[in-house]
């Protein structure tokens, strides 16, 4: 899911070290002036009460007003009502078409599209994926999710492409859009749900809208990137041929940006799918709802049965759209091929209909829940405690909590608030510019102003611990995978599965292994963030110049020396990106961590959603966003900003 930007290897100039001292000196000076002032006015370590703004009252009033006026106020009747209505009708239309096509028709259509776009192998994969969905007894939920996805992705693509077009054509709009898209990138999916639910109520319209808001940004970003990246000479040539601006856009710039547009589509689909499960919390139905209901009866097997179709859909859609981005077949034979494909799909659908086999036959389903549950029970029973020498997972979790999480949390909360701000400023300035440092400090201060300083530091301590664990495991695995093709191939499906598997599925095993508390929350975050870190590390190491490797080995360097002195320094930008992605992804799971005892901000968001308490939920959500922005700035090297990475 993570977009990977390629860097040219670059070494740290000596000047920078000078500059670093310079920056720190300036910062120390500012601190020397400001800290005594702040300290004299507000004593004590925690964020001073005088500097907080209590939003409880206005937010509660706003939410009451919305609920009371939702069925009478013109804004709702004439605007939101129509939006909601259109979504309901669109999803329904797609759903009815899918049901009318029957399982044979849908499978055939999917396979033929995959065949035209990406070749025979993926077509077979698509057939296997759809049949597995039916075989697991998940056909109808899969179709519900698919219907919702089709509408959500279509809307995201339209919205994203329009925004991207605006950003791609106008510099000013591009500058205005960038910070907005940056923010949306670090916004956890859960945080969108509460406001959307308040306005639209539970159900499919809210779910679709939350998905669109979540999935449109990558499309916008990549569209703008593609349009801006078009070859200047080609554009010049087009203009010299006398094409108008519109013709130039349609015939040159958009076709030239095809690759980015398709990558945008790919990312949008993946984001939308990952939202499909989270949106079940607000009544989206479909596969996500099955996972969520299985969670309630503590049934890992059933959750997995609904989770597998999501993984399969994600992998198939990812591969097919990915192949579309790379493929370049000429237009003419393609068109007739499409025609044949459509006719064939139609024929199969009609045949299925005539045979009265629209619904997936019950006799063809298999129940995997029971064996899976037995396996999970066995595993947790044997690993939980009392394993000789190394101790059980419960003991590890307890040690981790006592020796890592507690000191970290206590340390952070013990630090006076201004010193936390100073620390943030120093880190962000060292790695970035004074602008990034200023943003980081401001968002961190915003957390204090919102009145959630202490829980935010609690959450921060969990995030830091999780990132550290993720990086250690991720770098080790990534280095190993970069050195062995076989390992990389073996890892690929595993990473795919972990990246797309709904997090709800592994909540129960995580609790069964690590107990309730912050340790399982950290474990869930590590599982989620690890694949991206491993991928980026592997890719970064593999892209190190072959010549540099060659010359170092001809100089007689051992493989360990080679890794330490050539590969790792040269792959430094990729490793930094891995850190950044690790932080952002770990933060995205903070709320999920609230479901297993992570407490702090994550729990508050879940609480707000469960109790319809806008004040608690929204403030905690905003604080998570602030944390995300701060961590992003602190770990985001300057190169990435100037390079306009995706």
């Amino acid at each position, binding site marked *: 899911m993570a977009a990977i930007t390629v860097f040219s290897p670059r070494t740290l100039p000596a000047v920078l070290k000078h500059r670093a001292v310079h920056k720190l000196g300036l910062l120390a000076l500012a601190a020397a002036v400001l800290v005594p002032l702040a300290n004299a006015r507000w004593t004590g370590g925690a964020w001073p009460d005088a500097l907080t703004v209590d939003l409880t009252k206005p937010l509660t009033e706003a939410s009451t007003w919305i609920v009371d006026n939702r069925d009478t106020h013109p804004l709702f009747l004439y605007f939101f009502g129509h939006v909601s209505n*259109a979504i309901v009708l669109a999803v*329904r239309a797609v759903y009815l078409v899918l049901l009318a096509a029957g399982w044979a028709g849908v499978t055939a259509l999917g396979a033929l599209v995959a065949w035209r776009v990406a070749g025979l192998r993926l077509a077979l994969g698509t057939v296997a994926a759809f049949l597995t969905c039916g075989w697991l007894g998940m056909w109808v939920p899969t179709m519900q999710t698919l219907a919702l996805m089709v509408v959500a992705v279509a809307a995201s693509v339209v919205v994203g492409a329009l925004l991207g077009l605006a950003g791609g054509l106008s510099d000013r709009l591009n500058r205005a859009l960038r910070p907005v898209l940056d923010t949306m990138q670090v916004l956890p999916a859960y945080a969108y749900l509460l406001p959307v639910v308040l306005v639209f109520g539970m*159900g499919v319209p809210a779910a679709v809208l939350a998905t669109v808001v979540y999935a449109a940004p990558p499309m916008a970003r990549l569209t703008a990137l593609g349009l801006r990246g078009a070859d200047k000479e080609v554009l010049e040539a087009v203009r010299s041929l006398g094409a108008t601006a519109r013709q130039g856009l349609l015939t040159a710039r958009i076709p030239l940006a095809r690759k980015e547009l398709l990558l945008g589509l790919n990312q949008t689909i993946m984001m939308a799918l990952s939202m499909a499960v989270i949106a079940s919390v607000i*009544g989206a139905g479909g596969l996500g709802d099955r996972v969520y209901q299985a969670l309630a009866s503590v049934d890992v097997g059933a959750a997995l049965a609904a989770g597998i179709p999501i993984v399969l859909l994600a992998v198939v859609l990812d591969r097919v759209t990915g192949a579309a981005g790379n493929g370049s077949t000429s237009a003419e034979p393609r068109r007739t091929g499409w025609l044949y494909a459509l006719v064939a799909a139609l024929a199969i659908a009609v045949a299925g209909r005539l045979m009265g086999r629209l619904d997936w036959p019950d006799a063809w389903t298999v129940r995997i829940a029971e064996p899976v549950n037995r396996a999970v029970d066995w595993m947790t029973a044997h690993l939980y405690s009392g394993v000789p020498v190394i101790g059980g997972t419960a003991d590890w979790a307890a040690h981790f909590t006592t020796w890592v999480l507690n000191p970290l949390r206590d340390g952070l909360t013990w630090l006076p608030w201004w010193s936390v701000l100073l620390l943030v400023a120093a880190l962000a300035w060292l790695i970035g510019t004074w602008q990034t440092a200023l943003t980081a400090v401001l968002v961190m201060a915003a957390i204090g102003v919102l009145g959630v300083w202490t829980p935010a530091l609690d959450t921060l301590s969990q995030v830091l611990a999780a990132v550290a664990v993720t990086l250690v495991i991720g770098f080790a695995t990534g280095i190993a995978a970069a050195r062995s093709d076989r390992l990389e191939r073996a890892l690929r499906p595993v990473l795919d599965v972990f990246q797309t598997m709904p997090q709800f599925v592994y*909540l129960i095993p995580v*609790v069964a292994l690590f107990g309730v508390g912050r340790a399982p929350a950290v474990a869930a975050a590590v599982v989620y963030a690890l694949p991206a870190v491993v991928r980026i590390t592997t890719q970064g190491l593999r892209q190190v110049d072959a010549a540099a490797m060659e010359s170092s080995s001809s100089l007689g360097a051992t493989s360990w020396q080679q890794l330490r002195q050539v590969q790792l320094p040269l792959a430094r930008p990729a490793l930094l990106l891995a850190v950044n992605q690790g932080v952002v992804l770990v933060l995205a799971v903070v709320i999920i*961590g609230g479901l297993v005892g992570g407490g702090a901000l994550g729990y508050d968001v879940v609480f707000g959603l469960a109790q*319809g308490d806008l004040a608690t939920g929204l403030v905690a959500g905003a604080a998570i966003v602030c944390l995300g922005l701060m961590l992003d700035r602190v770990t985001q090297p300057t190169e990435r900003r100037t390079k306009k990475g995706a």
Partner: protein
Amino acid sequence: MRIRTRLCATAAVGSLLLLTGCGAADMTKQASPFANAQGSKTVTLSVQSWVGAQANVAVAQYLLEHELGYRVDTVQVDEVPAWDALSQGRVDAILEDWGHPEQEKRYVDDKKTITRGGELGVTGHIGWYVPTYFAQQHPDVTNWKNLNKYADLMRTAESGGKGQLMDGSPSYVTNDKALVANLDLDYQVVFAGSEAAQITQIKQFAKEKKPFLTYWYAPQWLFKKVPMTEVKLPAYKEGCDADPDKVACAYPHTPLEKYLNSDFARSGGKAAAFLKKFRWTTEDQNEVSLMIADQKLTPEQAAKKWVEGHESTWRAWLS
């Protein structure tokens, strides 16, 4: 529901604009897009996240589908949002409500978008529980006054130096933080964050016969797996929980209620009549819950088993 006939005729996306282009569109009158597909009559039921609620819905669903010929969609929603969804007609009925006076006033009395559907026949009770194996060794733990004596034994990494009182899902009613403070207990409330996490943790504790103190509620199938004994808190008196910060008394016993969307209650035909009559006992509910959660039957299989054995009970609901 209301736009059903028109919807079926105009499945094509092209007619979207025609339909929505003019006039007011009341969001609170829109049904789920997955309802009533292929011309069948659909009832949408809200399932809350606990298994008892799943049991109610499973049996209601089975009877609606097999005896009355409806198609039933279920949506899992938390308690408070479920009220909201019910008032908007996104779901047709809630079968088990633990008492939400604020929402009742707003939706039932003021807006009249929700109608009472009568009692479920089950009485709910929230309390603090310790495992029975521990209570037998230390009988005095079942009084709150002695809890501090055992705080050491209840300690976990998460609760730090204090004993751990485990709370569950954020959607449940809880006064535990106030109780711990007001009763001067040496305990730390640890929020498991979801019922699934809480149950999993309780099972792991029970496997090792470790002592623990947890917020829990009856009826609940877990009692059959992990026998637990309630800890006596200062007796509940009407109004003693009025101020959430000053609560120092036990939780009440609540007769669980059903609620129906008003439109559905009026025009829902046989389904609405059936849901109003649906009424069973704590034992019945536990029987089904246990089959779902412990024997890992699907809700449908569990409901089928119960329905086969209790025909006299459910016949009365259909008449």
